[in-house]
């Protein structure tokens, strides 16, 4: 192998990981600020803007990421790892910064959503090219017996990127009012602008790095691939392994990864109705406690092989997802303390009219009061109910007897401290599964393919698994919830099903043997 000092390998890992972390951060902030972004760039009621919004959300993840894997994977195998993942970093950082500079729809009309779509697609393209380069680069420097551990540092970046994105958005949001945050040139743009500083530092570090020693050797010997796409996907022996990597590891990893980190967060916020700060800090604590396990399982995979660690992670998800999410659902029903004879007994003195809409119907004025009532409990938990009272006036006279109240919706629930920490423990468990499937997978993919087509061959299955199978978790979840509305947990059958399929394929077809020599 190569004779790099331990200080040298630390620099290699740091240079690769920081860049990849920033790329994930850039990719996440768009998704996390989707609501504000859609108000600024994709206004409701405009069909073209709605179409562009859909493309920005779906095409960037599903089509452009695998396409980026092919484009930049090919480049990485042709001209080298170092320059390719420098390009992806510049592309990602530049696009993110520019999204923060695009004026809103109110100022420049249709040009705003078009520009944002274009920049979002560039983000997807860059992300598709980044990961394979970083993982390959580190693996090709790593000594025998430590490849899993060293590449696991790259694996921490996807979760740490989420951590940084959550933290930055929370910090900005907590230091200003909602209206200042959501204004056209408001606080929501700061996370995009911060990116350029981070990217600048990362480019500086990466510029000083040398090309991967294995790729340099191949290049010096004139043995690099002439056509990486053809050699990856039209060479039957290699294509067989690409398919096995996708169906036996990457697709299961994708759904476990997405369910643990994103579905859980959205479930706590939307299905459980937990308030913004608590739901975000539950995730932050869970991530903070679980992240070191990426390194642990990467290290362990060097000792016992990659296969079983990844498959056990999938199996744990398959077996425990429904009980864990069911616990979230039942334990967050703090409003049950108000139930009397099966009905909610709200305290009318707490009710506040937040807004009144007036409209005319059959010559009569109709008043719709949007009401909020906050209920505080002795154990420290709290809940806010939102409902509407509709009152019809008869010939200009309000008749309160006609008042019709909508069913109260419980929102902004505040959990007791004990329940909060139970939730943190369970989110930790969900992310622990992520560390099991995700920690060893870079080393697993790197070892599967030869140096000259490694970047291309490993990038595609990874991004289909992670981007397509993982990215579809909320969509299929919604599809299942719409089809079977009685079961609030029905959306989990998609990640459970995909992980089960991947588990079976992995158990039957994958080998647990580590290929110690990646110089081929």
């Amino acid at each position: 192998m190569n004779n790099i000092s331990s200080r040298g390998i630390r620099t290699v890992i740091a240079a690769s990981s920081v860049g990849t972390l920033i790329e994930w951060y850039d990719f996440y902030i768009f998704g996390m600020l989707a609501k504000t972004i859609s108000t600024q760039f994709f206004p409701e009621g405009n069909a073209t803007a709605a179409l562009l919004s859909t493309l920005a959300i779906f095409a960037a993840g599903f089509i452009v990421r695998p396409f980026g894997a092919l484009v930049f994977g090919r480049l990485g195998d042709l001209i080298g790892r170092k320059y390719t993942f420098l390009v992806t970093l510049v592309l990602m950082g530049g696009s993110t910064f520019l999204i923060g500079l695009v004026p809103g729809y109110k100022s420049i009309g249709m040009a705003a959503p078009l520009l944002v779509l274009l920049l979002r697609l560039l983000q997807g393209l860059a992300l598709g090219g980044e990961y394979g380069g970083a993982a390959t680069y580190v693996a090709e420097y790593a000594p025998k017996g430590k490849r899993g551990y060293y590449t696991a540092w790259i694996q921490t970046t996807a979760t740490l990127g989420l951590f940084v994105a959550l933290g930055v958005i929370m910090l900005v949001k907590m230091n200003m009012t909602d209206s200042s945050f959501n204004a056209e040139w408001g606080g929501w743009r700061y996370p995009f602008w911060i990116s350029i500083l981070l990217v600048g530092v990362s480019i500086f570090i990466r510029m000083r790095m040398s090309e991967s020693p294995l790729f340099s050797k191949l290049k010096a010997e004139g043995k690099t691939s002439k056509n990486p796409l053809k050699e990856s996907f039209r060479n039957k022996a290699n294509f067989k392994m690409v398919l096995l990597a996708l169906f036996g590891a990457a697709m299961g990893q994708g759904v476990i990864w997405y369910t643990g980190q994103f579905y859980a967060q959205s479930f706590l916020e939307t299905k459980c109705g937990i308030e913004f700060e608590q739901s975000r800090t539950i995730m932050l604590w869970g991530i903070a406690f679980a992240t070191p396990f990426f390194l642990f399982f990467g290290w362990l995979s060097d000792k016992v092989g990659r296969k079983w660690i990844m498959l056990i992670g999938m199996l744990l998800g398959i077996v425990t997802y429904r009980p864990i999410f069911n616990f979230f659902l039942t334990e967050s029903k703090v409003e049950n303390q108000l139930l009397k004879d099966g009905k909610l007994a709200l305290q009318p003195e707490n009710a506040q009219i937040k807004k009144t809409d007036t409209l005319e119907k059959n010559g009569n004025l109709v008043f719709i009061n949007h009401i909020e009532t906050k209920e505080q409990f002795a154990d420290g938990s709290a809940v806010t109910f939102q409902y509407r009272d509709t009152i019809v006036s008869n010939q200009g006279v309000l008749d309160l007897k006609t008042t019709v109240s909508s069913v109260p919706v419980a929102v902004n629930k505040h959990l007791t401290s004990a329940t909060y920490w139970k939730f943190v423990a369970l989110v930790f468990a969900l992310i622990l599964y992520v560390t099991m499937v995700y920690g060893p997978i870079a080393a697993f993919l790197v070892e599967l393919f030869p140096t000259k087509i490694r970047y291309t061959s490993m990038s595609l299955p990874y991004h289909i698994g992670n981007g397509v199978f993982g990215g579809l978790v909320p969509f299929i979840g919604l599809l299942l919830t719409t089809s079977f509305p009685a079961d609030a947990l029905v959306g989990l059958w998609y990640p459970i099903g995909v992980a089960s399929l991947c588990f079976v394929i992995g158990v039957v077809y994958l080998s647990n043997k580590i290929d110690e020599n990646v110089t081929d």
Partner: protein
Amino acid sequence: MNTVKKLLGLVWLILAPAVIYFLVSGAITHIDPSGTKDINNPVVWIIIILIFTPIAIGLFIFGLYALKGEYAKLPSKSDELN
């Protein structure tokens, strides 16, 4: 184990067109221009069917290889793929 690998190949062969069938029938059932959810949006379904069709073809080929016994012995080194 090799018999199991081959037999399961048949399952993957059947599963691949089944996935496409379920996606297309899901699209037909849920596309609704007056709906507001993602699952009512034809563009989303077009993107998903477009991206999933080659993946399902990949699963079909994987099943075919498995059925033919191509995964009976995996390469022990990536060098064998050169």
